[in-house]
């Protein structure tokens, strides 16, 4: 691990200012992904700003009937919150489908959004990877690509975003609240927060240097049956091959977002009008423009079958 200087931030404004002022600075909260990457020297921050002391660990009701989740709320506490379990079940289901009890006790809401891909070539410093070393090439294209993205890919990168939580947040139309080094706050729709790889796969999100996530907000509950179905190689502690986050109303209408298929949670609102007509009708729009490799082409029929199963389960519960 490369050496770094370390400070404990005392306020969000101080943290953002310090990050903008110090070259090579990074925030650290749970650290479960960042430290892993620092040990491999894939991440080499010169300065760490520990934000764990900031009072961003509350879940509060918002005036419009939603919830404001502090950036430092641990995944365990978010999943266990009685309001989240009752009104945003898809979020609890997605959270408990991810990682392990130990990691969920450490990982934060903001950190979960900012985790990097688990593409094995990103982790293997002996291999070219445009996300790790821009311009070096993509080893996954033409390599072992069974886990990789099939939607929104580019010639530079076919990595997936590994978060389950973010997929549920996409279905819930969440927003990400941030504080910028100049002291101004902004609110970013989750749909716009993560970026497709394009020709800059090294950039995962729209955050500016020093910009600090302070909260994630959920709009007021939309009701319906909440389901998160994760298909993976083993029953626990594995990343998704594909996952489906769905909110289905009694009349069969609803929302659906996918994980494990793209560089960001994948949702096509225009496909959702087809939900009462079944999975095939939805996926004809949801998966439009897919670009597969020989090894990950199975993901397209797997999405359709998983969605069909989810819709059947929702019908049974309605």
């Amino acid at each position, binding site marked *: 691990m490369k050496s770094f200087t370390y400070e404990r931030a005392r306020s969000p404004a101080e943290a953002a200012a310090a990050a903008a002022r110090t070259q090579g600075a990074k925030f650290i909260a749970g650290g479960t992904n960042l430290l892993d990457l620092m040990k491999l020297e894939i991440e080499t921050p010169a300065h760490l700003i520990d934000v764990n002391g900031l009072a961003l660990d509350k879940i509060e009701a918002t005036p419009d009937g939603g919830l404001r989740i502090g950036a430092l709320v641990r995944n365990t506490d978010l999943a266990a919150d009685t309001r989240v379990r009752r009104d945003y079940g898809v979020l609890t289901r997605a959270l408990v489908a991810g990682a392990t*009890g130990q990691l969920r006790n450490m990982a934060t809401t903001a950190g979960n959004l900012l985790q990097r891909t688990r593409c094995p070539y990103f982790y293997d410093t002996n291999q070219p990877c445009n996300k790790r070393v821009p311009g070096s090439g993509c080893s996954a294209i033409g390599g072992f690509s069974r886990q990789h993205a099939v939607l929104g890919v580019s010639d530079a990168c076919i990595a997936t975003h590994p978060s389950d939580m973010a997929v549920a947040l996409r279905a819930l139309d969440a927003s990400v609240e941030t504080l910028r080094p100049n002291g101004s706050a902004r609110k970013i729709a989750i749909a716009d927060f993560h970026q497709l790889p394009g020709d800059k796969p090294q950039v995962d999100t729209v955050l500016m240097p020093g910009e600090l996530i302070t909260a994630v907000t959920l709009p007021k509950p939309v009701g319906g049956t909440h389901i998160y179905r994760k298909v993976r190689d083993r029953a626990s502690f594995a990343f998704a091959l594909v996952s489906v986050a769905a909110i289905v109303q009694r009349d069969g209408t609803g929302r659906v977002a996918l994980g494990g298929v793209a560089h960001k949670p994948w949702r096509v609102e225009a496909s959702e009008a087809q939900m009462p007509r079944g999975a095939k009708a939805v996926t004809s729009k949801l998966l439009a423009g897919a670009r597969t490799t020989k090894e990950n082409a199975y993901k397209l029929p797997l999405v359709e079958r998983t969605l069909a199963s989810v819709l059947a389960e929702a019908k049974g519960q309605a």
Partner: protein
Amino acid sequence: MQDSSDIKITRREFLITGASSAAAIAWPSSTSAQQSGARPPVISRVSFEVNGKAQELQLDARTTLLDALREHLHFTGSKKGCDQGQCGACTVIINGRRMVSCLTLAVMHQGDKITTIEGLGTPDKLHPMQAAFVKHDGYQCGYCTPGQICSAVAVLDEIKAGIPSHVTADLNAQAQLTPAELRERMSGNICRCGAYSNIVDAITEVSGSKT
């Protein structure tokens, strides 16, 4: 390997090196390491409580909590299995929550209360979970066992606190203490000897529920 700047040398350096002895061949790389900003270690202070006793440490900021516990404080019960958060052998309990001590820095735990396997019980006075692991043969080689036991103790508290898991059927009801729940909740602790079913039996006995 990854830092190609280590082998980048200027034409001038190349000419000097090329004309000199073997001893000088190592010189360009150490010089360029300075030029590329090799960063000196940073010593940080942290104080926390381990197994009920206050500890104050001065250590390299890079030191993980696991290395601080093992190498600085000599609590060698917690094991370094994978050092990347996948095996759970380093699981300790921090402020009542189980965590993997390999994926967190010691300096991030100012003021925390940390419990390792050494703090749960002693050879003369075993924690009930330790006694149950012995009784049910919940291990073979024993390497993963301290992590398994710390995790198991915390799992029972998590179920009591109503924290749901992936296999909890009804999110709005109290989670039940079933073998399926225990297996899911213990999935972050790997046992390569395969003592899993005996581990489930041991935890079940301590919980007081029936299988």
